[in-house]
C-alpha cells in the first residue's frame, strides 16, 4: 500500500497544480502536496466517499490536513461499560459539516462500531463499539488517516461543573423567558384595558394569573443571582447581584400584596422580564468563557504526549508524563518530545531545545547529559533516567515563577466590576432615600413610600449595565474565534486594550520556529540530499524534504548524531563531517554540506524563516503607535539581524527566563506591556506582562500563561487582537455611558413615583436593546 501511495503521490500532472485532496497549490505540479493528502484521498476513494469533495466545496472549506505530533495511544482512555466501549477524542482540522459527515461515514464502514458522533462546536468525536478496547486505536487511526489530528481525552476531567452551570443558566433563561412572555401578554391586556372598559374584577383575575405564572418562575430563575449575592454578602462585599436580588424579591412580594389588596398596579412583569434579560447577559458571558476554555483544553489535549517507561524486566509501558516516578527508565524515540527531566543513560542524539531555551539550532547530546521536558529528540532513540520529578523539575520551577507573576495580575479588576462596586451602594442609598423622603414629606403612609422605593430598585436594576459588558465580550470573542483566536481570560480584552508596549519573542513567534532552505543549489544535488534527509527527523533534514517533498526515501541511510547522514560514500552533514572547507565562508546561520566522491562539497543554507507577514505586522503596530520591543534567548547576532530586517529599533538578546521577566517588569514601569511569546522560557514573562498572547504551537505552560492564543502561521492575528480589544473597550465604555445615562433620566421619575409598570417595561427593554445593538456593531468588519 505504501508503494501505491508513493506512486500516486509522485505521479506528476500537468493539467492542474493543485493538491488532489486539500486543494492547496503544489510547488512542482504533483498530484498531491504531501503524503498525508495522498493517503487521505486514497482512503476516501477506497470507502467510496468521494461525495465528500462536493460537500466540502458546497461548504466553502479547504480541508488542509492537520499535523499530528506523536499519536497518543487511545486504549487507556477507553471506558468499558455494560453497553460496550466508549472513547472520546479531540479532533483537529474539523472545518465544516462535510468533515463531520466524512468522519462519521468512514467510521460507519467499520463493522465493530456501534455509534460515532462528531460534535462540531466542541470539535470532539464520541465513539462506542462492542469488543476489545484495542479497537479504539484502530478507529482513531482511520480518523488520523483522513487527515485529522486526534487526541483521546477523559470527559470526566474536563470540568463538567462549568457545563452544568451553563446548562442551569440556560434552563433558568428558558423558564424566565416563558414566564416573561406570558405575563407580558396579560400585562398588555391590563394596560390596554386600563384606558378602555376593563373592570377591576377582570384586572384582578389577570393579576392573579400573572402571579401564578411569575412567582414560581421568579423563585426558580433568581437562584443564580441570589447565590452570588449571598456569597458576596457573606464575604462582607456587595456586588451587582445584591440590588438585583433585593429588587426582584421586594417587587414580587409587594406586587403579591397589591394584588391581594386589588390595587391598580402589579410589577410581576417588570420583575420577571428583568430576570430574563439579566439571564441572557449572564448566559452569553458564561457561554463565551466556556467556549474559550474548551478551545484551550482542545489545544492542550492535542499537544499532550505520553511517556514510554521501561521496567526492570524490559517491559514497555505507556503512561502520562506526570505518572513517571523518579529513577524510572524512559525510552524516547526519534521525533518524540522528552516527557521528563532526566539524564541520558543510553544513546546519543540531537535535541531541539527551541521551546525550552529559545535557541533555534538543535544541539547534540550524549551519555550523561541532562535533558529537560519539552525538548524534542531528533535523531536517535535514547534512554533516560528520570531525575527530579514533581516539584524539582525545570517546568515546576517555571511554574513557581508563573504563580508569583500571576498573583500580581489577579489584582486587576474588570471595569464592569469597578462600576458595580460604586454603583450598588448608590442604588441602595437612592432607594432608601426615596422611602424615607416619601415617609417624611409625603405623609402618605408606608405603602406608596415602599412602592416608590421598589420602583427605584427595579428601574436602576442594572439590566443594561449587566448586558453592556457581556454582549461586547461575546461579539468580540466570536469575531476573534472565527479567525482562530481564542480568548482565555474574561478580563483579557480590557487588559489587551490598555497595552502600549508590545514585546515579541523571536524563535517561534516572529519566526515560524523551523528552518527553511534559502540558497539555490543544483537540482541533482538537492534531489540526492532530500532523498537522504527523508530518513531523518532533524529540523534541517525536514527543511530539505519540505523543499523537495516528492523524493522517495533513500534506503540504507545511517544517521550519525551531531554529525550528519551517510549513504555509502555520500555524506550529508556539518562541514567537518562532509570534509568541506569552511574557511572562505561568511554564512553564520545553520548549514548542511553534501559531499559526493570526486565532487566539490555543496553547501545548503538555512534560515529560521520569519513569519510571512511579520514585517507588515510590525509596521502596522508602529503605525498604531505601539512601542515594539524584541526580547530573545537566542544569540546576539541572530537577534540583531532579525531586528534589522523587521525594523525593530529596540532589541535584547541572550536573556534567561528570569532576565526576560525582569526586562518585562522594567518596561512595565514605562507603560502597560503586551507580551507575545511561545517558549517555556517566555512563560514567566507572559505571566508578568499586563496582557499576553501566544501562538497555538507554544509550549503548554506558555499557552496556560497567555490571555489569548492564536492558531495559524499569520502574525497579523496579534494586530487583529489588539484592534478588536481597543474597539471592544470603546464599545464597553459607550455602553456603560448609555446605561448610566438612562438611569440619570429614569431615576428621578421613579423617585417621584411616576413610573408605572408600563413605563418600567418600556424603559428597561429599550435601554437593553440599545446596548445590545451597540455591541453588535463590533461583529461587522
Amino acid at each position, binding site marked *: 500500500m505504501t508503494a501505491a501511495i508513493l506512486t500516486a503521490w509522485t505521479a506528476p500532472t500537468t493539467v492542474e497544480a493543485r493538491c488532489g485532496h486539500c486543494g492547496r497549490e503544489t510547488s512542482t505540479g504533483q498530484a498531491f502536496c504531501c503524503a498525508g493528502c495522498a493517503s487521505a484521498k486514497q482512503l476516501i476513494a477506497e470507502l467510496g466517499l468521494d461525495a465528500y469533495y462536493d460537500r466540502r466545496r458546497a461548504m466553502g472549506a479547504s480541508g488542509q490536513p492537520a499535523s499530528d505530533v506523536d499519536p497518543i495511544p487511545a486504549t487507556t482512555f477507553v471506558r468499558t461499560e455494560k453497553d460496550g466501549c466508549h472513547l472520546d477524542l479531540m479532533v483537529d482540522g474539523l472545518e465544516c459539516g462535510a468533515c463531520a459527515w466524512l468522519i462519521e461515514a468512514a467510521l460507519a464502514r467499520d463493522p465493530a462500531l456501534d455509534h460515532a458522533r462528531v460534535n*462540531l462546536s466542541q470539535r470532539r468525536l464520541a465513539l462506542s463499539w462492542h469488543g476489545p478496547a484495542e479497537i479504539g486505536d484502530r478507529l482513531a487511526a482511520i480518523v488520523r488517516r483522513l487527515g485529522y489530528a486526534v487526541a483521546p481525552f477523559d470527559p470526566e476531567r474536563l470540568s463538567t461543573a462549568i457545563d452544568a452551570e451553563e446548562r442551569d443558566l440556560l434552563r433558568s433563561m428558558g423558564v424566565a423567558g416563558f414566564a416573561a412572555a406570558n405575563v407580558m401578554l396579560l400585562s398588555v391586556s391590563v394596560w390596554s384595558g386600563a384606558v378602555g372598559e376593563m373592570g377591576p374584577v377582570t384586572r384582578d383575575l389577570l393579576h392573579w394569573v400573572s402571579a401564578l405564572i411569575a412567582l414560581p418562575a421568579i423563585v426558580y430563575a433568581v437562584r443564580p443571582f441570589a447565590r452570588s449575592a449571598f456569597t458576596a454578602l457573606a464575604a462582607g462585599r456587595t456586588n451587582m447581584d445584591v440590588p438585583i436580588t433585593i429588587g426582584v424579591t421586594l417587587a414580587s412580594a409587594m406586587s403579591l400584596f397589591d394584588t391581594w389588596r386589588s390595587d391598580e398596579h402589579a410589577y410581576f412583569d417588570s420583575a420577571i422580564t428583568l430576570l430574563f434579560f439579566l439571564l441572557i447577559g449572564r448566559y452569553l458571558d458564561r457561554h463565551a468563557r466556556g467556549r474559550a476554555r474548551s478551545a484551550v483544553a482542545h489545544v492542550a489535549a492535542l499537544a499532550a504526549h505520553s511517556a514510554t517507561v521501561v521496567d526492570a524486566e524490559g517491559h514497555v509501558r505507556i503512561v502520562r508524563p506526570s505518572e513517571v516516578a523518579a529513577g524510572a527508565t524512559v525510552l524516547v524515540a526519534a521525533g518524540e518530545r522528552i516527557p521528563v527531566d532526566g539524564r541520558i543513560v543510553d544513546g546519543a542524539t540531537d535535541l531541539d531545545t527551541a521551546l525550552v531555551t529559545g535557541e533555534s539550532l538543535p544541539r547534540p547530546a550524549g551519555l550523561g547529559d541532562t535533558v529537560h521536558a519539552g525538548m524534542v529528540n531528533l535523531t536517535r532513540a535514547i534512554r533516560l533516567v528520570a531525575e527530579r520529578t514533581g516539584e524539582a523539575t525545570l517546568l515546576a520551577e517555571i511554574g513557581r515563577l508563573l504563580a508569583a507573576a500571576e498573583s500580581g495580575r489577579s489584582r486587576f479588576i474588570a471595569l464592569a466590576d469597578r462600576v458595580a462596586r460604586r454603583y450598588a451602594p448608590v442604588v441602595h442609598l437612592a432607594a432608601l432615600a426615596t422611602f424615607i423622603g416619601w415617609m417624611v414629606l409625603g405623609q402618605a403612609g408606608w405603602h406608596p413610600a415602599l412602592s416608590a422605593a421598589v420602583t427605584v430598585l427595579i428601574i436602576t436594576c442594572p439590566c443594561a449595565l449587566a448586558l453592556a459588558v457581556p454582549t461586547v465580550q461575546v461579539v468580540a470573542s466570536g469575531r476573534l474565534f472565527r479567525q482562530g483566536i481564542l480568548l482565555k481570560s474574561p478580563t483579557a480584552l480590557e487588559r489587551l486594550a490598555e497595552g502600549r508596549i508590545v514585546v515579541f519573542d523571536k524563535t517561534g513567534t516572529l519566526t515560524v520556529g523551523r528552518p527553511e532552505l534559502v540558497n539555490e543549489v543544483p537540482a541533482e544535488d538537492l534531489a540526492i540530499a532530500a532523498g537522504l534527509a527523508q530518513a531523518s527527523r532533524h529540523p534541517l533534514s525536514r527543511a530539505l524534504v519540505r523543499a523537495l517533498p516528492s523524493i522517495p526515501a533513500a534506503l540504507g541511510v545511517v544517521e550519525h548524531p551531531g554529525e550528519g547522514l551517510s549513504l555509502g560514500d555520500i555524506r550529508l552533514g556539518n562541514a567537518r563531517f562532509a570534509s568541506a572547507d569552511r574557511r572562505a565562508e561568511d554564512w553564520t546561520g545553520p548549514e548542511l554540506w553534501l559531499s559526493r566522491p570526486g565532487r566539490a562539497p555543496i553547501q545548503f543554507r538555512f534560515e529560521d524563516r520569519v513569519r510571512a507577514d511579520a514585517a507588515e505586522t510590525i509596521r502596522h503596530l508602529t503605525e498604531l503607535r505601539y512601542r515594539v520591543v524584541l526580547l530573545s534567548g537566542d544569540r546576539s547576532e541572530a537577534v540583531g539581524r532579525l531586528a534589522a530586517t523587521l525594523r525593530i529599533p529596540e532589541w535584547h538578546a541572550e536573556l534567561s527566563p528570569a532576565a526576560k521577566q525582569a526586562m518585562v517588569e522594567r518596561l512595565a514601569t514605562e507603560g502597560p506591556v503586551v507580551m507575545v511569546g511561545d517558549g517555556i522560557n517566555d512563560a514567566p514573562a507572559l505571566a508578568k506582562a499586563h496582557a499576553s498572547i501566544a501562538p497555538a504551537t507554544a509550549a503548554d505552560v506558555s499557552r496556560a500563561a497567555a490571555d489569548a492564543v492564536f492558531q495559524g502561521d499569520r502574525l497579523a492575528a496579534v494586530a487583529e487582537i489588539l484592534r478588536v480589544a481597543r474597539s471592544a473597550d470603546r464599545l464597553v465604555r459607550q455602553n456603560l455611558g448609555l446605561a448610566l445615562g438612562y438611569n440619570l433620566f429614569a431615576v428621578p421619575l421613579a423617585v417621584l413615583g411616576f413610573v408605572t409598570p408600563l413605563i418600567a417595561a418600556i424603559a428597561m427593554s429599550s435601554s437593553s436593546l440599545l446596548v445590545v445593538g451597540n455591541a453588535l456593531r463590533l461583529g461587522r468588519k
Partner: protein
Amino acid sequence: MSGLLYLIPVALSLGLLGLVAFLWALRSGQFDDLDGAASRILFDDQKPLSSKEIDR
C-alpha cells in the same frame, strides 16, 4: 369577557408545551452542538437502502 376563562388556560398550556419541549431538548443534548446541527441538515445519510425501500 367570559372567553378569558378558557382562552387564558389554552394560551398558557400552549406556552407550557413550548417550555416543556425546550427543557426536553436541553436535557437530551440538542443544544450541545449548534454548529454541527446547522450543517448536518444539508447532508443526507449515505446508508444503503433496505430491501423494503428498493422494492417500493
